[in-house]
């Protein structure tokens, strides 16, 4: 066996896996805290990528300034997402919120198609040197992607476990009424949750452009993949989503290399189905 190929694919899988991780973490956070399936999460990522294209090519900002601006803007937009498409619908059946986020995703996707057209757009990367580590070709942009992903996820983890806000957030997710009774401002927690999730989604968007082009159509397939990850992990389990996202990204690349390129896309779903058959609540799901 040629170990260089194995390591090359491990690296490629790490790139994809990092995106899955950061995407699924946000999706899972919203579900875990608010019990809301955010069907617009993929479009938030897409918007992050497209806005980055506009601020870099239109306003002439550099990659890092532009990315920081976009992530901050999108995080603030998360507040609006909560107030306009989630909060007004929470009193009704859980399905109504799914429908309102579907409506949001309709608006974002089709609005973006109007603004940017369906052609993929390239974004200038800050640096893109190819480095040979051992027998493996690694890009500096890819290293940036992996580094930022894991810093962000680690930050999310520390926030949830070590800050007062994180404690409030977890308490709200465990028992909404109980959290209110002990005086937690759950409205503020919901706002923050969507701000964080929207920021994470946009971060995924600005990182994706390091390895592929930005296009208004990138949201939907990513949403499907994100769901596959959270299904395998168990809905609402953020740490599980991170582990599973990474695992699936890496094994998917190995599967594509050594078993079948053609069915590579199907791999995720086959794993998902096996998990569903054995543990419908997911690997780390409660019950």
């Amino acid at each position, binding site marked *: 066996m040629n170990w260089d190929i194995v390591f090359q694919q491990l690296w490629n899988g790490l790139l994809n896996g990092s995106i899955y991780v950061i995407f699924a973490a946000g999706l899972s956070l919203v579900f875990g805290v608010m019990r809301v399936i955010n069907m617009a999460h993929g479009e938030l990522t897409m918007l992050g990528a497209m806005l980055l294209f506009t601020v870099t090519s239109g306003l002439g900002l550099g990659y890092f300034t532009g990315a920081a601006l976009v992530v901050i803007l999108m995080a603030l937009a998360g507040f609006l997402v909560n107030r*306009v498409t989630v909060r007004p619908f929470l009193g009704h059946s859980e399905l109504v919120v*799914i429908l*309102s986020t579907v*409506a949001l995703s*309709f*608006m974002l996707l*089709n609005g973006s198609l109007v603004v940017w057209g369906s052609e993929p757009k390239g974004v200038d990367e800050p640096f893109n040197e190819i480095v040979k580590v051992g027998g493996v070709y690694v890009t500096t942009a890819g290293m940036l992607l992996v580094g930022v992903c894991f810093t962000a996820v680690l930050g999310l983890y520390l926030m949830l476990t070590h800050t007062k806000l994180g404690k409030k957030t977890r308490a709200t997710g465990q028992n909404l009424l109980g959290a209110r009774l002990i005086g937690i401002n759950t409205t503020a927690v919901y706002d923050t949750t969507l701000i964080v999730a929207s920021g994470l989604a946009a971060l995924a968007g600005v990182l994706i452009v390091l390895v592929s082009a930005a296009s208004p159509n990138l949201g939907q397939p990513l949403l*499907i993949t994100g769901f596959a990850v959270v299904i395998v992990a168990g809905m609402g389990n953020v740490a599980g989503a991170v582990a599973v996202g990474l695992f699936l990204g890496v094994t998917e690349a190995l599967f594509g290399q050594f078993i079948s390129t053609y069915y590579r896309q199907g791999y995720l779903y086959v794993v998902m189905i096996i998990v569903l058959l054995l543990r419908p609540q997911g690997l780390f799901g409660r019950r």
Partner: protein
Amino acid sequence: MRLSSGIWVGAPTLVVALLLPLVLFTNPYNRGLLVLIVIYAVAGLSLDYIMGEMGQFSFGHAAFWGFGAYVSAKLALDLGVSPWIGFVAAPVAAGLVGLLIGYIALRRTRGLELAIVTLGFGVLAWTVALRWRPVTGGPSGLRQVPPPSIFGWEIRSELAYYYFALVLLLVVVFVLSRLRRSRFGRAVRSIHENEDLARSVGVSATKYYVIAFAFACSLVGFSGALYAHHFRFVNPNLLGLQYMFIFLIVVLVGGTGSLWGPVLGALIFVLVSEWLRVLQEYRFLIFGVVLLLVVLFMPTGVFPTMRRVIRRLVERRGSDRDANAPDADDRADRTRAG
């Protein structure tokens, strides 16, 4: 809904439905829209059996719809089987797969978890349809699906197919109204109201839910077959999220828990998205806005809202004539809506 009020509203509606293609929807394109309304209505009714009656949610419903379409199309194209047999085979096949998936999913998951699990199965089905080229024809799907024929005469025109589909919709509505009142239907609703209580009085919740789920899958498979033999093609999109969203809109905009809701929802969805066509590329952007507003102002759906408004008007007028208490049905509807 009581039988009498059902007939008072149903009969004129049927007359209007019969006249529509002769009066307002006179060209083939518009008549095609009517066919689409009927097909979506059947699909919406089946999804509402899961949402309204079971109080559950299947995000893989479009996969069964597409599956039914593929089964019937495949039988007609490869084996030369008559579409009539396809109309039976599609619901049977979709029902059997629904039984299997329902058995796997409903044993352990409910509510939003079930939604996600069924989404997983739906996505897998979509991937298979896309990738299993020798059988499914890959991304371009299967073309030239034959239309059904009666006594050697092909039901090919939009007008004929509309009446044909309308008759089948009536059959579906009739079957559903009987089913909802049957012992089985009441057992399903009792699980919806309180699963623990239903179990404690000896209703085997999982068994009833799996059968009800399979029934809904079989019904949507039938709707898919209706689609395949009218539009005469099938492709992997039919199993995808796009149609899932459409059915979701049909049911939630129309209103869950009644037979009128999904039919009205199908009508509203098809007409509104057609009217918005003039907006060209802004069409779906505005559609999203409209959808959000409808959900905001009528969270229980158009039909229940309409019914509540009409009842209130009638009650106000009739209050001095006879002080009739709201009937049991009305109360049940309200509790379910809330």
